[in-house]
C-alpha cells in the first residue's frame, strides 16, 4: 500500500533522513518509534508530500507519487493526516472542519458533505459537538474531530504524527480508542507515537528510527522484548523503564 524507497531529506546542512525505506501492507498498522530528532515526523510528512523528499521514491497503491507529473494535492487526498497539535481550523465549527475538505476539495454538494461529516463525527463519538468551535472542545475532542476530518475524505491510509503527545493524560485514552477501532476496521495506518501500550497492542509492526535511519524493525514483541541492536535496547529500556 505504502512504500518508501531510500528516502533522503536535507534541511540546509542537516541530513534528516539518510536513506529510509519502509513498507506498509494494506490494512496494516505500522508504529514508528524513536528519540526526538530521529526523523520520524519528516518521514511521515514525506509520505503525503508535506515534505518533498530530496532523493528516493514514495509509492502509494502502486503509483510513484513524488513525481512532478502528480499533483501533491491529489496525493494528500489519498492519505489522511492527524497532527500532534490537532490543527483544527479555529474559525470553523467541528461540523464545518469535517465538511470543508468535502465541499472545497472534493466539491461535493453541501447536503451530501454534511451527511458524511455528521456520520464521521458520530464515528468518533462527537455527534453532539457538531456546532462547537475548537476552542470550546477539550484536547481529546479536538483530536477526534481532526481524525474525523481526515476520515471524511475516505483516505486509503492514515498518518498519525504523535497524536496524543499534546494531550492531557485524561484525554489520551479516548483518542487511542478511536485509533484502535480504526485499526480493527482494517485501515492502513502509520503512527508515530510514544504510547508504548498502543504500539504493543495495536501495531502489526514496529519500526525503530534513530539519527535518520531505520535501526530495527519487526513485530512489537520482537522489538520490545528481544531487541537485537544496542541502540534499540537502550531506547526500549528507557521507555519501558
Amino acid at each position, binding site marked *: 500500500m505504502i512504500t518508501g524507497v531510500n528516502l533522503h531529506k536535507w534541511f540546509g546542512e542537516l541530513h534528516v533522513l539518510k536513506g529510509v525505506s519502509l513498507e506498509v501492507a494494506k490494512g496494516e498498522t505500522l508504529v514508528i518509534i524513536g528519540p526526538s530528532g530521529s526523523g520520524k515526523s519528516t518521514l511521515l510528512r514525506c509520505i*503525503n508530500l*508535506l515534505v518533498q523528499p530530496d532523493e528516493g521514491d514514495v509509492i502509494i497503491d502502486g503509483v510513484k507519487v513524488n513525481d512532478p507529473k502528480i499533483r*501533491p*494535492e*491529489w*496525493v*494528500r*487526498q489519498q492519505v*489522511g*493526516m492527524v*497532527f500532534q*497539535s490537532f*490543527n*483544527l*481550523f*479555529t*474559525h470553523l465549527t467541528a461540523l464545518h472542519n469535517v465538511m*470543508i*475538505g468535502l465541499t*472545497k*476539495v472534493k466539491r461535493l454538494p453541501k447536503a451530501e458533505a454534511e451527511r458524511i461529516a455528521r456520520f464521521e463525527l458520530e464515528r468518533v463519538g462527537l455527534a453532539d459537538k457538531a456546532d*462547537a*468551535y*475548537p*476552542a*470550546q472542545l477539550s484536547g481529546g475532542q479536538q483530536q477526534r474531530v*481532526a481524525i474525523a*476530518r*481526515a476520515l471524511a*475524505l475516505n483516505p486509503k491510509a492514515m498518518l498519525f504524527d504523535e497524536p496524543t503527545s499534546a494531550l492531557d493524560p485524561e484525554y489520551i485514552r479516548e483518542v487511542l480508542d478511536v485509533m484502535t477501532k480504526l485499526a480493527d476496521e482494517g485501515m492502513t495506518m502509520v503512527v508515530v507515537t510514544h504510547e508504548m501500550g498502543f504500539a504493543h497492542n495495536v501495531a502489526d509492526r514496529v519500526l525503530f528510527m534513530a539519527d535518520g535511519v531505520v535501526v530495527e524493525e519487526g513485530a512489537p514483541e520482537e522489538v520490545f522484548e528481544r531487541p537485537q541492536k544496542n541502540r534499540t535496547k537502550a531506547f526500549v529500556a528507557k521507555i519501558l523503564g
Partner: protein
Amino acid sequence: MRKSDRRLHPASHLVRRILSGVIVAEAALLLVYLAGVFGTYDLGYALSLLPPRGRALTTGLLTTLGFMAVVIPLGFSLGFAFGWARTSTAWPARAVATTYVEFFRGMPPIVLIAFAFLITIVLLKGNDRIDLFAFATGAGVMALAAHSGAYQAEIIRAGILSVPTGQVEAGEAIGMSKGTILTRITLPQMFRISLPALGNEFASLIKDTSLLSTIGALDLTFQGKNLSSVLITGGGSLDLVIIMWVEIAVLYFVITFVVSRSLLAIERRFRVPGLEAAQL
C-alpha cells in the same frame, strides 16, 4: 456555554463605567461652555447667517464623504496588497512592499499630499484639455491613501503572520490548493484578528482627510477655515465661529462613530470563540 462566552470580563465593565463617566463629564462641560457662548449671542445675526453656513457645511460634508469613499477602499486595497506581499516568500515582492511601507510611513501625510499636488501641477501644467486642479487634488487624495495603506499593510502583515502555520499545514494535508487555503483558512482568520486595528486606522484616516484642505479641497475643514475668516472679517463675532467649529466637530464625530460602530457590528457578527482579537 456559548452565552457565557459573550459575557464581558469584569475588568471591561470597569473600563466601560470609567469611559461613560468621562463622556458624561465632557458633555456637561461642553454644555456649560455653549450656554455661556449662547448667553452673549446675537440670535438674529446667527440665524441670518444660517443659510450660507448650511450651504457651506453641506458642500464640505459631501466633499469629505466623497474623499472617504475613495481613500478608505483605496488605502485598504494598497494595505492588503502590500501587507500580503510583505509576507511573501519571493524576495522581490518583499523588497518592493517594504520600500513602500517605509517610504509612506516615514513622512507626514501633509507633506505627501503637498508633494503629490505640486508634482502633478508641474507635470501637467500647460495642458488645457484637463482640469489641472482636479487632477492635482486627486493626486493628493492618492497620497493620503498611500500613507494610510502603509499603516494598513503592517496591520495585514501582522494578521497574516498571526495565523499559525499548523492551520496552513492542515489545509495542505486535506488536499487543499494554495488558493483555497488562502481564501478559506488564512484570510478568514486574518480578518477576524485584524478588524479592530483596521477600524482604528479607518477612524484615523477619516479625520486625516481634513489635511486635504491644505491643497484647497472644499471639505469640511476648508469650509470651517473659510467661514471663520468670512465671519470674523464680516461681523467680528467669535462666538459664531466657535459654534460653527462645534458643528464641524460633531459632523466628523458622527461620521467616525458610524464607521467604527459598523466595523464593530461586523466584528461581532463574525466573532468566533478562540479567535477574538486582543481587545483594544
